[in-house]
C-alpha cells in the first residue's frame, strides 16, 4: 500500500523538473527540430513537385519539338513543291519566251530576206534596164553609124509594121 501513496517531496521535484525540462526542450529542441523537419519535408515535396513539373514540361517540349519538326517538314515539302512549280513555270515561260523570240527573229529574218530580195530584184531590174538601154544605145549607135544602115533599119521596121 505504501507504494501507492505519492511522496510530497518527489511530487514537488518531479513537477518542477518536468515542467522546466518541457519548457527548455520546447524552446530549444522541439521547436527548432520540428520546424526543421517540416521545412525539410516541404523542400522534399517541393523538389518532387518540381521534378514532376519538369517531367511534364519535358514531355510537353518533346511534343512541341515533334510538332515543330512535323511543321518544318511540311513547310519544307511545301517550299520544295513551290520551288518545283516555280521552276517549272519559269522553265516553261523561258521556253515559251524563247519560242516566241525565236519565231520573232525568224519572222524578222524572213522579212529582211524578203526585203533584201525585193531590193535586190529592184536593183537587178534597174541594172537590167540600164544595161538594156546601154546595149540598145550601143547597138543603135552601131547600127546608125551610117546612113544606109539607118535606112535599112527603118525599112526593116517599116516592113514589120506593114506585115502586122
Amino acid at each position, binding site marked *: 500500500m*505504501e*507504494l*501507492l*501513496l*505519492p*511522496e*510530497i*517531496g*518527489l*511530487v*514537488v*521535484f*518531479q*513537477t518542477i*523538473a*518536468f*515542467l*522546466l*525540462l*518541457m519548457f*527548455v*526542450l*520546447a524552446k*530549444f*529542441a*522541439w*521547436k*527548432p*527540430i*520540428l520546424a*526543421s*523537419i517540416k*521545412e*525539410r519535408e516541404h*523542400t522534399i515535396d517541393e523538389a518532387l513537385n518540381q521534378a514532376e513539373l519538369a517531367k511534364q514540361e519535358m514531355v510537353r517540349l518533346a511534343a512541341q519539338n515533334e510538332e515543330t519538326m512535323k511543321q518544318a517538314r511540311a513547310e519544307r515539302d511545301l517550299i520544295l513543291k513551290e520551288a518545283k512549280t516555280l521552276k517549272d513555270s519559269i522553265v516553261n515561260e523561258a521556253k515559251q519566251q524563247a519560242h516566241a523570240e525565236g519565231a520573232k527573229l525568224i519572222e524578222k529574218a524572213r522579212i529582211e530576206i524578203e526585203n533584201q530580195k525585193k531590193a535586190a530584184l529592184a536593183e537587178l531590174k534597174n541594172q537590167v534596164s540600164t544595161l538594156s538601154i546601154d546595149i540598145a544605145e550601143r547597138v543603135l549607135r552601131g547600127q546608125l553609124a551610117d546612113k544606109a544602115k539607118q535606112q535599112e533599119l527603118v525599112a526593116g521596121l517599116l516592113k514589120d509594121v506593114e506585115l502586122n
Partner: protein
Amino acid sequence: MDCSHVFDFKVSRLIVVFTLFLAFFFVTPLLYAQEDTLKTTEAAHAEPEAEKKFNLGKFALHHVADSHSWHVFGDYTIGLPVILYTPAGLVTFNASDFHGDDDAKVVVERAGQRFVSVHDKIYYASAQANEHGAYAEHDAAGKVKNARPLDFSITKNVCTLLLSVVLLLAVFLKVANGYKVRKGKSPRGIQSWFEPLIMFVRDDIAIPNLGHKYERFMPYLLTVFFFIWFNNMLGLIPFLPGGANLTGNISITVVLATITFLLVNFNGNKYYWKHIFTPDVPWWLYIVLVPVEIIGIFTKPIALAIRLFANITAGHILVLALIGLIFVFNSVFVSFVSVPFALFIYGIELLVAFIQAFIFTILSALFIGMAVEDHH
C-alpha cells in the same frame, strides 16, 4: 508494426521454459531437504548464528521503493542529503547519519528535533525506545504511528530524475544543434537516431489523435514520451547511474497524469463539456450518465498514472522475485533456471519500457484529442 510471427516463436519457447521452471519446484524440495540435513550437521560444529530468514516480499518492495541512500556494491552505500521541512524550519543532514539503520534504532538530532528512519521513510522519533530498542511506535498492522516531517530530500529517485533531465537536455539539445548545423540536410549521428522517434510521435501519436491542432501539444507529448522512455531504460540498468525505479513510482506518474488531466480540461471545448453534462440521450438517463461522465474525467488520468506505475513496478518485482528465488531456496542450483528466466523477463522489460512510454503518450494525445475535437 507486425511482430506476431516473433511473438508466436517466443510464446512457444516461453511455454517450454515455463514448464521446466515449474518442474524445478517439484525437484528442488528434495535437493533442499538433502542439503538441509548436511547443513544441520555442519551447523552443529559452527558458531550458533541468528538465522536471518530471507523475506522475498520485503526484498522486492525495498528495491522498487525510493531510498535515502544509494547502494553501490557490497556494503558500500552512498548517503544522500536529507532535507526536511519542520515547524522549526528546514533541517538538513546526510542519510548516512543513520548509519544504515532502517528500524528506528538510530536517532538523528537536528535543530532540537529527533528523527528516525523506518523503511526508508523519516519520522519524528518517539521520546522513549520500545522493547526492541526502536524509537517508533507501530500499530496492529505494523504501520508506524509516528508523525512525519515534510520530506524534500534528494532521494535516489530525485537524483535519477535530475540525471534523466540532464541526459534528456544533453541528448535533445545536441539533436537540435544537428538541425542547426546541417540546415536542410539529411540527419547524421545522434540526430538520425532520434529523428524517426520524433517523427513517430508526430505522425503516429499526435496527428492521428489531434488532427490539425497537433502542433500545440507536441512539446508535451514529445517530452513525456522521451522522459518516460529514458527513465524506463535507466530503471533497467541495475547499477549506479540507473537502478532507481523512477517511472515505477506513483509520485512521478501522478504528476505526469495530472499534467495530462490539466491539458485535457483546460483545452476542452464546448463540445467536450456538452458531452459530459448534456449528452445526446433521453433526459432521464442523465441521472446515471452525467455522474459516470464526471467520474470519467478523473478515472482517465488515474488509470494513466496507475498503468505506468504498475507496469514498470511489476516488471521490476518480477525480475527481483526470480533472482530472489535463489535466496528463498538457498540453493545455487535455482540460478540455472531463475537467471535465464529473469533475463528473458528483462528482455521483455526493454520492450515494455518503450511500449509504456508509447501508451502513456498516445492515451494522453487521445484524451486531449477528444477534448479539442471539432464537431460539425
